[in-house]
């Protein structure tokens, strides 16, 4: 499926509006869209809504052998997927430039910034360490996937709890969630990505571009920062040339935005922790808005049925008994198994079947024994020679007969 191309009048309209400092959804130049963060039922699942852009992150862990160069450090693995759900332009399995760019940026933002303490993930040095795997799925693409991804990933990592491990000598026991409380990961800082879109060769700048604005932009600057005003990564793409003052100004704007977003994540984590402590159910099911007209919920219902056993028995007795079938595979001699002995072979040319075929008779349909109960022949039938025409290109066909017992 291809995405609808952007028309020239749309492009001109967007560019002209940006020149007049107007945005399609009425935001100001430095405004973010509404961010909503919810967590799933199990630890490590996070949904982020950035306006209409929706992203889901899931963190999981497993014990693996560590890398040889770093025997006492755990491994972080990031997997970002552009689901075909998010946009008609995304195709499954197709590794596009956007996918590589997003994956790389996520890795730089979270792994290279060393925001997670990987040494605490070591269980047995050189043999067993935890591999933390972060899977991010795009659910809806309405611009600025990178920001939503970085928020979802770091929120999911902060939410995640890994199973507790006990070491006794050489034995390592992994305790399930019921036996011992799982442990949270130790996170040093939360790097969050902020995207700036540039238009007209760097003259105009917009924060958090939506999908239409992304299509007409000249270049994109992604600044990853944490709330301690440390820059974790900067990436500029699109080939625009930026002045030093512009980059510094962007990083100042980013620091303001990042601190707001970090507060939002912290609040969401607090709410979730409180809800779990009170024993309330958490998850996607709970976060579904009830007041919307497009949403409906039904409580647990019973399905009443009386006379069910009688009804079922009637059906079973009413049906004819299925035909006797030989056990398959039959073993006529040790070392030889025969499947389908005594079945009616329909590979040969049968005149009755050909009447129904309109096209030039290809193979007639193979009859299945269970359905045709009347016309089965029991016992051995002569072996039909499959290909005996002179112009067959196969070598001589030799048919092996089973040894008769």
């Amino acid at each position: 499926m291809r995405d609808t191309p952007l028309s020239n009048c749309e492009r001109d309209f967007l560019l002209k509006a940006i020149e007049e400092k107007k945005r399609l959804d009425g935001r100001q130049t430095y405004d973010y869209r509404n961010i909503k963060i919810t967590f799933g039922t199990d630890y490590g699942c996070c949904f982020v809504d950035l306006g209409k852009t929706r992203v889901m992150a899931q963190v999981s862990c497993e014990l693996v052998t560590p890398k040889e160069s770093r025997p006492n450090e755990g491994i972080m693995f990031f997997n970002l997927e552009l689901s075909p759900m998010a946009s008609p332009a995304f195709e499954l399995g197709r590794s596009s430039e956007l996918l590589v760019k997003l994956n790389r940026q996520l890795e730089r933002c979270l792994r290279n910034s060393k925001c997670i303490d990987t040494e605490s993930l070591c269980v047995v040095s050189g043999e067993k360490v935890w591999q933390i795997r972060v899977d991010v799925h795009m659910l809806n693409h309405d611009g600025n996937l990178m920001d939503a991804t970085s928020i979802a990933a770091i929120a999911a990592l902060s939410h995640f709890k890994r199973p507790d491990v006990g070491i006794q000598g050489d034995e390592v026991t992994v305790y399930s969630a019921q036996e011992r409380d799982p442990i949270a990961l130790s996170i040093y800082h939360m790097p969050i990505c902020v995207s700036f879109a540039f238009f007209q060769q760097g003259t105009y700048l917009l924060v958090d571009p939506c999908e239409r604005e992304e299509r007409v932009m000249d270049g994109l600057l992604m600044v990853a920062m944490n709330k301690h005003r440390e820059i974790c990564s900067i990436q500029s793409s699109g080939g625009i040339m930026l002045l030093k003052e512009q980059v510094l100004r962007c990083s100042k704007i980013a620091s303001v935005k990042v601190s707001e977003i970090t507060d939002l994540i912290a609040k969401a984590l607090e709410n979730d922790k409180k809800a779990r402590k009170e024993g309330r159910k958490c998850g996607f099911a709970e976060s579904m808005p009830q007041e919307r007209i497009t949403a409906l919920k039904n409580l647990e219902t019973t399905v009443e049925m009386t006379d069910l056993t009688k009804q079922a028995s009637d059906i079973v007795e009413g049906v004819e008994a299925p035909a006797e079938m030989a056990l398959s595979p039959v073993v006529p001699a040790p070392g030889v198994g025969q499947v389908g002995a005594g079945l009616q072979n329909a590979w040969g040319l049968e005149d009755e079947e050909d009447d129904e075929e309109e096209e030039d008779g290809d193979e007639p349909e193979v009859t299945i024994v269970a359905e045709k109960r009347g016309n089965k022949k029991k016992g051995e039938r002569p072996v039909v020679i499959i290909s005996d025409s002179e112009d067959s290109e196969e070598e001589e066909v030799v048919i092996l007969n089973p040894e008769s017992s």
Partner: protein
Amino acid sequence: MEVCSSDGFNVTLREFGCEQCLLSRPDGSSSFIQGDTSVLAAVYGPAEVKVSKEIYDRATLEVVIQTKVGLPSVKERSQEQCVRETCEASLLSSLHPRSSLTLILQVLHDDGSLLSCFLNAACMAFMDAGLPMSCLFCGVTCAIARDGQVITDPTATQEKESRALLTFAIDSTEQKVLMSSTKGSFSVHELQECIAISQMASEKIFQFYRESVQRRYSKTL
């Protein structure tokens, strides 16, 4: 989710909920929740189809199932096959020749009865997209416990402890079985019982579909 007395069965369905039109890009989208199991479905179509995949007189339906963690395996492929066969039986694909219909299902949380949740979400997404269908369909999962008790809409723990797991796709017009996918061993009598139970349970689900759509269009109609 359990039950049973000796001759009258009294089975229950978990709390279920649905939200339609929650994603802005796809032509139709829905999320279906059964207890804790939740699934997000998105439909694109009818749209352009690749020449290699086109069928001259019908629309080409493609189903993609995505799990939360890891790459899709053979199990997801077989579930895709089950969902695709059900959808092809009920969609009027001959109205859109040489087009593609793509259904994408994303697992949000798996707590049992996943295949029936896929089917329900798919049907609601098709309704949201406005695709022509000859009938609606729904999915019901039954689990037979080791003592012979039948449980509908089992949770993950109930599924693990069961001796057989049966999923049926039922159509709305005649309550016929469109697709069945079973795992485990069971007798013929138990199979017929489960089919009858699924047919009764499907009535509740179809009633829920009707109520959702009624509520959705209550402001416009």
